[in-house]
């Protein structure tokens, strides 16, 4: 009985992390939140932000 519970729990934990990884990776890649400068007419492009 204990073995079965361990196996089921293992499948749930391992499978859960694997599924979460795939979902996280796919969602992040398709939902592009990167914001590039909206205009290039301004000649001073920031090297970065520190806020």
């Amino acid at each position, binding site marked *: 009985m204990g*073995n079965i519970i*361990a*196996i089921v*729990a*293992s*499948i749930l*934990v*391992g499978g859960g*992390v*694997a599924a*979460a*990884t795939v979902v*996280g*990776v796919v*969602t*992040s*890649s398709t*939902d*592009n*939140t*990167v914001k*590039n*400068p*909206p205009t*290039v*007419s*301004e*000649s*001073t*492009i*920031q*090297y*970065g*932000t*520190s*806020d």
Partner: protein
Amino acid sequence: MIERVVPTVWAGVLAVLLLGPALGPGFVLSYDMVWVPDLTLTRDVLGLGSGLPRAVPSDAVVAVLDEIVPGFLLQKLVLVGALVGAGAGAAELVRDRSLAARLAVVSLAVWSPYAAERLWMGHWPMLLAYAAVPWLVIAGRRRAAGERSPVWLLPVLIAGSLSASAGLVAGAVLLATGLRRGRRPILLVVAVVAVNAPWLVTGLTHSGQAAAASGFEVFALRGDALPAPLAALSLAGIWNTSVVPASRDGWLAWAALAFLVVLVVAGFRRWWRSDEQRVSILTLWAAGLTVAVAGWAAPEALDALAQDVPGLALLRDSSRLLPLCLPLLILTVAAGVDVVGERLRGSAPRWAAAIVVALAPVALLPDAAWGLAGGIGTADYPASWQQARMTLAEERAPGDVLVLPWSAYRAPEWNARRPVLDPLPRMLTRPSVTDGDLVVGGTTIPGEDRRATSAAEALAVPDPQARASALRRLGIGYVITDRTAGEAPRVAGKAVFDDGGLLLQRLPEERDAVTGHATHPATLVATIGAWAAYVLVWLVATTSTVLLLISMARRRTARVRG
């Protein structure tokens, strides 16, 4: 053999998943990562220009190698090689651990905030140094144990020392693990000094400018969802918040830290008991963390100190040296995975644990995937850039090139408006003068190049003819203006190339004009000496690599015959 293949293949899978679109045709141009089809070996590239030699020796190495391998392909080899090398090195460092532990450290090394953030920031020499760290620990340990140094030591040391900060990391790791009482240190020290000689010497010859470098506060370690010191513990905390994956601003950053701490704590005791070099490894970790946190804790004091201490400005991007912490994390996490695995009974829980520890770094930083969720990608240079380069190459008038608009960074339309250090200077066949000022969050950090300051003053003159005359007196013979990059001051001169986007002008002759940037003879001699030492190390490294390949081929042939 299979023991090495599985972790290396896993590192390859993660590298491809992380780089994604960056592996497509074209160049990856992101912040400080500027690669061009054919980099010319100019005075600037060798560190003899007027500006601070920030890309020495990396640019010179690229300028030579892109004669053999096309620039875009070389860049991809570097990016993939750095990530796969980091993962494979981490697995090799803990070779005596279980497969689950080795896969876990592969994920930890490849899919780390440091690798993701520095890749986005374009610090590819630091990525190579990061990849070299575990290999240098292995090499250092062998040497300390009295064994022969592996033949790959020099190539790895060279690859890991392509910039000043990278050289500091690689040198520190090798010396900390390789120097032991009773072992003659001279060869190791000579090798470390020789691979770092170009930036050491050219840095010293520009020490006046280096002392003017400031900005410790702007470039200091910065927290994300975690306070800065805790971010540093998980190899995160880059100063530029624009290159931090969004997931680092949420609870996933806390979860990643908790995951790391649990495994480090679980494995620390076992590692401490089994590792003869524990003090060196712990010292490296403490040094990396101390430098990172110091920049955050006392930026003003460091700014003031940097005016008097030559070379201190190297540490202003304080989290750059965090790869020094990598060996301890790899060794303790691997031990921790084994400790946890031994407490589990049955193969199913162990398999589940192996999957969890191998995938957790990816699950906790999901938006590092596929080119940092669009943060990096590839681009092709407009055809006109190549034409302008060829036109300039055929020009015979003396003088260097001034690049306009007068700002260091661009966000070109053809690069999906991704910010990048202006690639034009590297595209050209002559030394150039550009604006060195950096704008970060509205704060301007003045550049150190005095010639650029003089050029800015010349551009501030109201009349285009007077600007041209002032520039000629600074040794500027040509001005190239990228009209697509914004407003630029007009300069009088004959247009030798103009396609509407790029304008290349030859400045009128001046009686008191100078022909370029003059280098002091002593500086020239010292720089030639440094490059000679560097080339010598390259020759030794190349010879040893060829010999290794021949011996491997012979062994394989003998095995097949036997």
